[in-house]
């Protein structure tokens, strides 16, 4: 299951990530996607609708869970910030809508942060002091359905401003620009988020029940009950769960469930510090 999902608009924005994490292409329809054991990346193409669709594709294809960290990584324009500035998006809106999205940033913020306006055509006026991109709002709208908003973020590298036009940059220059900021983004933003997400990952780790289900016939409902009971027993018993052999006298799954309930009730609270 992926721990980190990356969404980029362009292949040249994706290339530094693919190389850094050693991602391999997967055979897929619709979007170019790449993966390793823990990381998945999709190239959405330009525009907020394409980005929303690609985000949904990634979540569905890789069955991402709520512990997954999502990052929309790419370039953006800003009136004044120097080319190469790394900016975390703290407020996002699509140009034709009035509703804002506010990403929640649950880690110390070591990077510059700014509002991002998602537009339909390349921006060259830079009317307000904010980032301009073409995907962010669509990405947030989709990705926040799959993970808590605290783990769904966009990080932009300023590519153009009033002094340096976007038209100066070819795809190699864009890759170089992203590549030059990759370590900063990973060390100061992505890794702390991944560390934080382990809280949810650890709590959602499933308990292996097959030694019980191999021995007794559990219905689907009773399998859920079994898993929940073993989880609770582990929680109050310093992580230890009973062995199936302890229930040898039980003739049915129902009896095992009853025995486990009794076991849970008999355990006194033990608190680790």
């Amino acid at each position, binding site marked *: 299951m992926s721990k980190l999902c990356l969404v980029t608009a362009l292949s040249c924005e994706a290339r530094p990530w693919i190389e850094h994490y050693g991602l391999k292409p997967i055979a897929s329809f619709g979007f170019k996607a790449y993966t390793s054991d823990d990381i998945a990346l999709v190239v959405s193409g330009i525009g907020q609708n394409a980005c929303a669709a690609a985000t949904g594709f990634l979540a569905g294809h890789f069955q991402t869970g709520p512990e997954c960290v999502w990052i929309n990584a790419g370039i953006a324009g800003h009136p004044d910030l120097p080319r190469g500035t790394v900016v975390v998006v*703290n407020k996002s809106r699509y140009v034709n809508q009035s509703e804002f999205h506010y990403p*929640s940033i*649950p880690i110390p913020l070591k990077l510059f*942060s700014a509002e991002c306006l998602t537009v339909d055509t390349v921006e060259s006026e830079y009317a307000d002091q904010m980032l301009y991109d073409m995907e962010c709002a669509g990405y947030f709208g989709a990705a926040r359905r799959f993970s*808590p908003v605290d783990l769904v973020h966009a990080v932009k590298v300023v590519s153009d401003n009033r002094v340096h036009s976007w038209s100066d940059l070819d795809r190699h220059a864009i890759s170089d620009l992203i590549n030059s900021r990759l370590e900063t983004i990973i060390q100061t933003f992505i890794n702390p988020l991944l560390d934080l997400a382990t*809280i949810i990952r650890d*709590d959602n780790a499933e308990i292996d029940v097959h030694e019980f289900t191999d021995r007794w016939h559990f219905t689907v409902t009773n399998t859920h009950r079994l898993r929940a009971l073993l*989880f609770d027993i582990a929680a109050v018993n310093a992580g230890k769960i009973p062995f199936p052999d302890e229930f040898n006298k039980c003739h049915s799954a129902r009896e095992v469930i009853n025995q486990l309930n009794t076991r849970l009730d008999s355990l006194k*609270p033990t608190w680790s*510090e």
Partner: protein
Amino acid sequence: MIDLIYLEREAIDHPRTQKILNQYPRAEVVECERYGELFNRSGQNFRLQKNRPALILAIKHGTKVLPAPQEYSVGGKNNYYFSHMLNCLYDCRYCFLQGIYRSANYVLYVNYEEFFDSIRGLAASAPPGDENWFFSGYDCDSLALEPLTGFVESVLPVFEELPSNWLELRTKSTQIRSLLSREPLSNVVVAFSFTTEPASRTLEHKVPNSERRMDALAALQRHGWPVALRFDPLIYHPNFKSEFAALCERIFSHLNSSLVHSVSVGGFRLPRDFYKRMRKLYPKEPLFIHCLEDNNGMVGYCAEIEADLLEAASNSIEQYVDKDSIYRIEEGAS
């Protein structure tokens, strides 16, 4: 440490906002139209946000001061509560704020003066002779963020004007400088919360340890402030009786017990929906697994355990203070 501040548009020009922003010159400031755009929206994770809460500066609209349930009374006829702030610096695992809010960010309503007008209005409308109590510290700790908010410093002159009305400041904080730097008020009670040592060590995260709280309590009493004790919630664990007796012994060795205004005790209980949300946030927390039952939508210890806890606690406390000063809180949320 606050490094991200959300600022409601209506609060921008409030003098208190500017003062707070000046305290955090390096914080990123993000403007919003209304704080509800980002606070408590679905899809947020309280536990993750607790790692680094942001500050939201906002204006409180609507009713500022609400009636408090009678079972929370410590002897007053009319009881009210108010929250100038939502959420707490501390991270107590039993705290119902985790169940109420999806967001752990701190919301600070900067229009204190409108709270004070409501308090004055309620005080003026009460029949003569009625004792009115105003409880602060329901949705936040009354003192923990005092260096940031200056709320207590602002509210005390209001109660100086209203000597027949009472204010309770409920806290676990040792931020008592603003109280020690002025003359005490006989109608303002500083109420400190305690749990037994094993419960405190394991469940009260980021909270000053009980020894420091006792020192603060004693300093306030020496200075002349009325003080009170709140043992709410009582948390069940092995050796509760002896641990609670030891806690009382330590606390009352710091205090002149005859001057303690009141002591209240209450069991651990939560509305069902709060409990479910907290259980989901902390699925491995033994507190939410052990010995609890659902009674008509309130989740708490089974009647037998709760009665034992209340009985043991009351017996210990009665060794130090008059029985009439002990209040049992048996309904509502922890």
